[in-house]
């Protein structure tokens, strides 16, 4: 049996898990399913691609870093892209979601997110066309690491980036004042106001972090697979599945959910056939929810 599916599964699971963090935060804090989250991912990736182009035009061609397919411009552009995507999410909230949330009907906000999703995607297709593009067209050789597993330097670095981002996010949520306030608000919104938590600050942090992590997930897809306007939409269902599987509101849960989805899809490709990959992932999702209806780290509502 070829164990390569483990690497493939962990990689796609990391992309899904990073994206699912934003979905789980939006759902638990702002109390709605944001169907535009996948498009934040695509917008972040295109913003990063554009910034890489701007850096290239300003500073000329740069050499890749060591064995990687990309150089420092992608790192700088990626960080700036994460900030921009967070700000874009914040702006979308200000012009659209916040006004609808104030009316108190979450189904209207969900439908608005569908609309925003389509508008954001169409704008990308209009601006960049729907043809796939890449951060780098250079081909990387995968290195054998034993047991028949091969991995590229890009993949190693991106997995490292995922570990760093998820650890930082977990520490932020549990150790920082804003993180604790976000948790408190998701558990009891009325009491959060009573104890002096500024709701506007919590909402801002939720959009900024969710947007930034969506961008990071998108960059990962862009480096490993390709960049397309539909890239976020393709990952939307797996991201929701990961958030639900891990337990709504849980950052480690979203990442673990992503890894389970990624690994089960990759395992299905190897063991059953590529056409069954999504079916297997969702059978696992349903099986876990039958045993733990609130997800792996979820807690039953009182």
């Amino acid at each position, binding site marked *: 049996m070829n164990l390569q599916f483990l690497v493939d599964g962990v990689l796609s699971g990391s992309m899904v898990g990073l994206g699912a963090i934003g979905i789980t935060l939006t759902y638990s804090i702002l109390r709605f399913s944001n169907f535009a989250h996948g498009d934040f991912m695509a917008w972040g990736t295109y913003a990063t691609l554009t910034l890489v182009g701007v850096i290239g035009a300003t500073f000329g061609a740069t050499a890749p870093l060591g064995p990687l397919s990309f150089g420092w411009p992608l790192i700088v552009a990626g960080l700036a892209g994460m900030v921009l995507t967070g700000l874009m999410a914040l702006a979308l909230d200000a012009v659209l979601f916040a006004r609808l949330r104030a009316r108190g009907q979450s189904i209207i906000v969900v439908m608005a997110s569908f609309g925003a999703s389509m508008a954001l995607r169409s704008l990308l297709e209009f601006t960049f066309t729907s043809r796939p593009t890449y951060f780098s067209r250079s081909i990387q050789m995968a290195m054998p690491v034993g047991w028949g597993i091969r991995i590229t330097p890009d993949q190693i670095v991106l997995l490292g980036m995922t570990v760093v981002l998820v650890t930082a996010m977990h520490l932020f949520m549990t150790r920082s*004042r804003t993180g*604790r*306030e976000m*948790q*408190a608000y998701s*558990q*009891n919104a*009325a*009491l*959060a*106001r*009573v*104890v*002096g*938590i*500024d*709701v506007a600050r919590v909402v801002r942090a939720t959009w900024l972090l969710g947007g930034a992590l969506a961008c990071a997930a998108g960059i990962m897809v862009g480096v490993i697979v390709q960049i397309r306007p539909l890239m976020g939409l393709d990952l939307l269902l797996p991201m929701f599945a990961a958030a639900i599987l891990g337990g709504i509101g849980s950052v480690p849960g979203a990442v673990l959910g992503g890894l389970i989805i990624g690994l089960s899809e990759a395992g299905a490709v190897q063991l059953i056939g590529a056409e069954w990959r999504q079916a297997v992932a969702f059978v696992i999702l349903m099986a876990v929810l039958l045993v733990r209806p609130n997800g792996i780290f979820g*807690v039953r509502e*009182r």
Partner: protein
Amino acid sequence: MTGPILQVDALVAGYEPGLSIVRGATMQANAAEIVVILGPNGAGKSSLIKAIAGLVPVTSGSVALDGQEITQVPAHQMVRRGLAFVPQTDNVFPLMSVQDNLRVSAGVLARAEIAGRIDEMFQMFPDLARQRRLPAGSLSGGQRQMLAAARALIVRPRVLMLDEPSAGLSPKFVEMVFAQLAEMRRAGLTIVLVEQNARAALAIGDRAYVLVEGRVAHEGPAASLWHDPIIAELYLGQRKEGAR
């Protein structure tokens, strides 16, 4: 300080426009006194203190704390002004540890002060200190009320408002909660207490208001109110016999 700490004048408030629950309530609380708010179910007692806390929209009237108008101050800024509120239910963050419940509630204090203040709360409520790492949702009803009170007290409020702190507690715990409130009053805290358990509340209260249909129908010293036959018949009804 000569005037009342909390002054509520002709307050009208309700969740829906045109559907007032509090209909012109006037009350006050002086420094270091326990003011009890009584009344039949649906009289608007909880809504009154929630309106004071900024949680129910106020349509007219005014609330002043220490002479400063706070009527339209957003709920999350009330703690900074010195007004703390303990809701009747859902008054802790269930998935956070006891310690984190206190920490997240101490956000208005200076950063260097928070750890010391948490320790002071654990000294005041030793039961909580033993459970500091447990999620608040796993505490018993009485311990939860203690945590809710500690959560409110951690910011050293000038006025503490509690909505039926004895609800659902065993008689032993009720006694403990009320003894603790009396102790806090002795330490100089002003307490506004909404209670169904009229006898226990009046026993520790200084003054009381009886609210009927959103208005103050009667007010007076707590000690004499329990013996007032009209009040007992009209507003406390059979509760007088059944209380405790």
